[in-house]
C-alpha cells in the first residue's frame, strides 16, 4: 500500500503537469547543486526527487499513519499543568514524519529545508489527509515557516527555520479570539514594546490548532488606541512557560489535532516584518497557504471516504447482486468520483498558480535581474498574485463543501454499516465537517472571491484556459462551457448595474459556484487531452453542470432582499423565548 502510487489520479496529475516554469523559478539554474548533496542538477533530477518524496510520504501515510488513525480518533490528548501531552499514536506518526525530514519541506536549503514548491507540499498534504485528516493540521502548519522565511529578519530565520526543518519545532498560528473570529480586525491581544525595544504579549487566544506548538505566530495589537486592522502586527513567540494552555476543546472531529485556548502572560515576542502589516499583508499570505492546504485536506478525506464506500459497494450484496450495480448507488459513486477528480484538478492548478506567484515575486526581489526583465516580472507577479487570492478562496470553498457531501454520501452508500463506528465512514464525515468552517468559513471565502468575478479577473482566466486545441468531442463540451460563461457574464452585468452591495452578498454564493464549476470544467477538459478516461470524466461533469448553470443564473436574476427585509417576521423573532 502506498497512498501516492496507489492514487492513480494524483499520479496522473503529477506526471502530466508541466513543472518546468516552477522548477526554473525554484531551482534558479540548479545553482545549489554544488553546495548541497541533495540539490538537483537538472530538470529530470528535480522531478525524480519530487517523485521519490511523494513515494516516501505515501508509504508513511499508508504504513504508519492510516494504521493508527482509528486510535488517534479515540485516544485523547492530556492537558497537564498548562501543557499538552499528545496521545502516543499521534506522537508515533509525527516521529515518522520527522525522521523522514518532511516537517519543513518548503524551507530553503540554506536553512536546512528541502526547497519544495507548494505544488509538492500540497500533494503531501492530500496524501497525509487521506490517512488521517487531523495529523495534516500539525503537518500543514509547517506552512508558517514560509511566512517566517518570506517576511522575518535574518536573525529570526536563522534561529527558527532550522528547527522547523529538522522537525524539532512545530508551528501554530494564533489569530482567533473570543470576539475576533471571522472579524480579525477586532483582535484585542496586546503587544507592548519595552524601552529596550523588546516586545511582550498579553491576552487570550482561542480555538488555536496545535496551540501547544513550540513556535507560534501571534496576531496582536501593537498600536494602542487603535481598533482596526492597521493597528495589528504579527509576532513570533515560543511556547514557553509564559504561554499556558487553559483548555483543550472537545470537538466533533479531527480529534488528533489539539485545539487550544491559550493564555499569554508577558510572553517575550519578536516582531515579524513591519509593524501594522500583520493582518493586511502577512496574515493574508498565511491564509492563502492555509486555504490551499485545507482544500487539499478536504480532497484527501473525500478520497478516503470514496475508497471505503466503493469497496463496500463492490462486496455488499442485496437482492442477489452487488449494490454497486444498483442505479442509485452507481449514480452516487460516479458523482462522488467525478467531483473528487474535478476538485483535485482545481487544487493543483491553484498550487501551480501560487508557486508561479511566489516564485516570480522572489525572483523580482532578488539581485541580478535586468531592468527589462524586472518590468515584465512585476506585471506577471501582480497578475499571479491577484489570481492566487481569487483561486485560493474558490478552491477552499468548493473542496470543503464537496468533502462534506462526498463523505455524507459515502456513509449513505454503506447504509447502517456506515453509521457504525466499526467502519471509518463516520469519522471521515466528522473530520470533513470542519473544513468549510476553519481557515475562513465558506461564507467568507465567497465574499472574498466574488470581487474577482465581478471585476473580470476570472473571465480573463477562463479565456486563457480555453485557448487550447480541442478534438471534436472536447470542442462540443467547450461550447457548453462557453455558454455557461455567457450566462455568468450576464449575471455579473446585472449585478454590476444594480450597484447594491447587499444584493451582491446575497448572490455571491451562486456567482462563485458558477465561476468555480466552469473553471473546473475547463481543467477537466485540459486533462482529457492526456487520457480518454478523463474525457468521460469531463463529459459527465460538464453535462451535469449545464442545467445547473442555467438554474443558478436565473436564481441570481431573481434574487431580492426579502430575507433581510422580512427577516423578523420569517424567523418569528418575537416568538423566540430564550
Amino acid at each position, binding site marked *: 500500500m502506498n497512498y501516492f502510487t496507489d492514487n492513480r489520479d494524483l499520479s496522473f496529475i503529477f506526471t502530466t503537469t508541466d513543472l518546468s516554469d516552477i522548477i526554473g523559478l525554484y531551482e534558479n539554474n540548479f545553482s545549489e547543486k554544488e553546495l548541497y548533496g*541533495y540539490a*538537483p542538477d537538472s530538470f529530470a533530477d528535480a522531478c525524480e526527487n519530487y517523485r*521519490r*518524496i511523494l513515494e516516501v510520504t505515501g508509504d508513511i501515510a499508508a504504513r*504508519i499513519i492510516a494504521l493508527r488513525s482509528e486510535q488517534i480518533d479515540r485516544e485523547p490528548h492530556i492537558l497537564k499543568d498548562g501543557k499538552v501531552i499528545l496521545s502516543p499514536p499521534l506522537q508515533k506518526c509525527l516521529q515518522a514524519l520527522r*525522521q*523522514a*525530514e*518532511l516537517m519543513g*519541506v518548503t524551507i530553503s536549503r540554506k536553512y536546512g529545508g528541502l526547497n519544495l514548491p507548494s505544488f509538492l507540499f500540497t500533494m503531501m498534504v492530500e496524501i497525509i489527509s487521506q490517512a488521517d485528516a487531523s495529523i495534516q493540521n500539525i503537518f500543514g502548519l509547517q506552512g508558517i515557516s514560509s511566512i517566517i522565511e518570506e517576511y522575518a529578519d535574518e536573525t529570526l530565520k536563522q534561529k527558527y527555520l532550522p528547527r522547523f526543518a529538522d522537525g524539532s519545532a512545530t508551528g501554530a498560528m494564533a489569530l482567533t479570539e473570543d470576539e475576533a473570529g471571522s472579524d480579525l480586525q477586532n483582535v484585542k491581544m496586546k503587544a507592548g514594546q519595552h524601552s529596550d525595544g523588546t516586545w511582550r504579549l498579553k491576552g487570550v487566544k482561542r480555538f488555536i490548532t496545535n496551540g501547544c506548538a513550540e513556535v507560534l505566530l501571534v496576531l496582536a495589537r501593537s498600536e494602542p488606541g487603535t481598533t482596526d486592522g492597521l493597528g495589528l502586527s504579527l509576532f513570533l513567540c515560543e511556547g514557553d512557560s509564559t504561554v499556558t494552555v487553559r483548555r483543550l476543546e472537545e470537538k466533533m472531529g479531527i480529534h488528533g489535532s489539539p485545539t487550544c485556548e491559550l493564555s499569554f502572560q508577558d510572553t517575550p515576542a519578536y516582531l515579524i516584518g513591519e509593524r501594522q502589516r500583520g493582518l493586511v499583508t502577512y496574515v493574508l499570505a498565511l491564509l492563502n497557504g492555509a486555504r490551499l492546504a485545507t482544500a487539499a485536506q478536504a480532497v484527501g478525506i473525500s478520497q478516503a471516504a470514496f475508497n471505503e464506500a466503493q469497496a463496500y459497494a463492490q462486496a455488499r450484496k442485496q437482492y442477489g447482486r452487488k449494490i454497486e450495480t444498483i442505479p442509485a448507488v452507481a449514480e452516487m459513486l460516479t458523482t462522488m468520483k467525478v467531483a473528487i477528480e474535478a476538485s483535485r484538478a482545481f487544487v493543483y492548478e491553484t498550487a501551480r498558480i501560487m508557486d508561479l506567484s511566489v516564485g516570480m515575486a522572489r525572483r523580482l526581489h532578488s539581485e541580478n535581474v535586468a531592468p527589462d526583465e524586472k518590468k515584465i516580472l512585476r506585471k506577471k507577479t501582480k497578475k499571479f498574485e491577484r489570481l492566487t487570492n481569487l483561486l485560493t478562496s474558490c478552491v477552499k470553498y468548493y473542496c470543503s463543501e464537496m468533502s462534506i457531501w462526498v463523505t455524507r454520501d459515502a456513509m449513505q452508500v454503506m447504509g447502517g454499516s456506515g453509521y457504525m463506528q466499526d467502519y471509518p465512514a463516520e469519522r471521515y464525515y466528522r473530520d470533513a465537517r470542519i473544513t468549510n468552517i476553519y481557515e475562513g468559513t465558506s461564507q467568507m471565502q465567497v465574499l472574498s472571491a466574488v470581487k474577482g468575478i465581478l471585476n473580470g479577473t476570472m473571465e480573463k482566466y477562463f479565456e486563457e484556459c480555453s485557448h487550447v486545441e480541442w478534438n471534436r468531442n472536447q470542442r462540443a463540451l467547450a461550447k457548453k462551457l462557453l455558454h455557461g460563461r455567457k450566462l455568468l457574464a450576464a449575471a455579473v452585468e446585472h449585478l454590476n448595474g444594480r450597484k447594491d452591495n447587499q444584493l451582491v452578498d446575497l448572490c455571491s454564493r451562486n456567482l462563485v459556484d458558477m465561476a468555480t464549476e466552469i473553471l473546473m470544467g475547463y481543467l477537466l477538459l485540459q486533462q482529457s487531452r492526456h487520457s480518454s478516461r478523463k474525457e468521460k470524466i469531463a463529459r459527465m461533469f460538464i453535462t451535469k453542470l449545464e442545467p445547473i448553470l442555467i438554474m443558478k443564473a436565473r436564481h441570481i436574476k431573481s434574487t431580492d432582499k426579502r430575507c433581510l427585509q422580512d427577516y423578523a417576521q420569517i424567523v418569528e423573532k418575537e416568538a423566540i423565548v430564550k
Partner: protein
Amino acid sequence: MKYSIIVLAKQVPDTTAVTARAMKKDGTLNRTALPAVFNPEDLNALEMALQIKERFGASICTITMGPPSAAEILRQALYRGVDRVVLVTDRRFAASDTLATSAVLSRAIQQIGTFDLVLCGRQAIDGNTAQVGPQVAEKLDINQLTYVEKIEQLHSEKISVWRDVERGKELAAAKLPVLLTVTDRANLPRPPSAKKIMHYKKARAKSELTDGGTGAHRAAKGLLVEEWDADSLGIDPAVCGLSGSPTRVKKIESVIRKGKTFKKIAPTDEGINELLQELIQEYSFD
C-alpha cells in the same frame, strides 16, 4: 563511547505479497513475480543500530551478500542514516546455504576489522531458518544473543537485553563484542529520510554500472558502493556457493489444506468445556 556496529541485511522476495504466480511448477520460488525488499527484521536490526547511534554515538556499516541488484537495500540503509555500506557479491557465491553464507559474511566482518556489535534480523522471510546470525557468531567466535526485543543496558564492555523466549521474556547479558538477532517486536523501523534519498539515490555499486565505467565520478561524490568478491575477501571458493553448501532439498510438496468436516458446538458452558477438552487432548492447548 562510540560503538562500531555492523548490520547484516538481506534482500528478499516480498513473501507478504504472494500471488498465484509466486510459485513455479517445480515448487520453487518465482522471484520475478515478487518485488525484492529489505528483509523486514533486518530493518528492525538496522533501527536498533540507529537508535544506539542516536543515544550513544556509533558508526554503522551495513553489509549484504547477494546479486548486484541487492545494492538497492544498501541504498535504503544509506537513506536511513548508516555510515558505510558494503556489497558482497560474486557469481561463485550463488546457491549458498546458511553455512556458506555465514562463512562469507563472517569473513567480510573480519575484513571490516574491529567492531562492538553485529546486529541482524532474527530470520529472513524467504528461508525463515534463523541460522545465519548464530552461525556468523560461531565463526567469529563471539557471544550471541538471539531473539532480542529490547536493549536494557549498554555499557562500554557489556550489554544486557530482553529476549523473547516464547512463553516469557528473559533478561540476558553478554560481553562485547556480541552478535544480536533482533525480532520485529523490537521497534518500528524509521522511514527513509527525504534528504538522504535525494542525496544517495544515485549511489551505485560497480557491478551495477551498465556503462562499463569505473564509477570514478561517483566515487568522488561518495556515491560508489563498496564491493567485495571472493578474491578481495580472500575466501576459498570451495567453502561458498553450491560447493560449500551441504544442504540439499530432497523434495518440495505443495500442500493445500482443506477443512472437510465441521462440528457444531453448543453455545453453552458444557459445549465450551467439551471443546476445551478436545483441544487439550489434541495438544492445541496445555
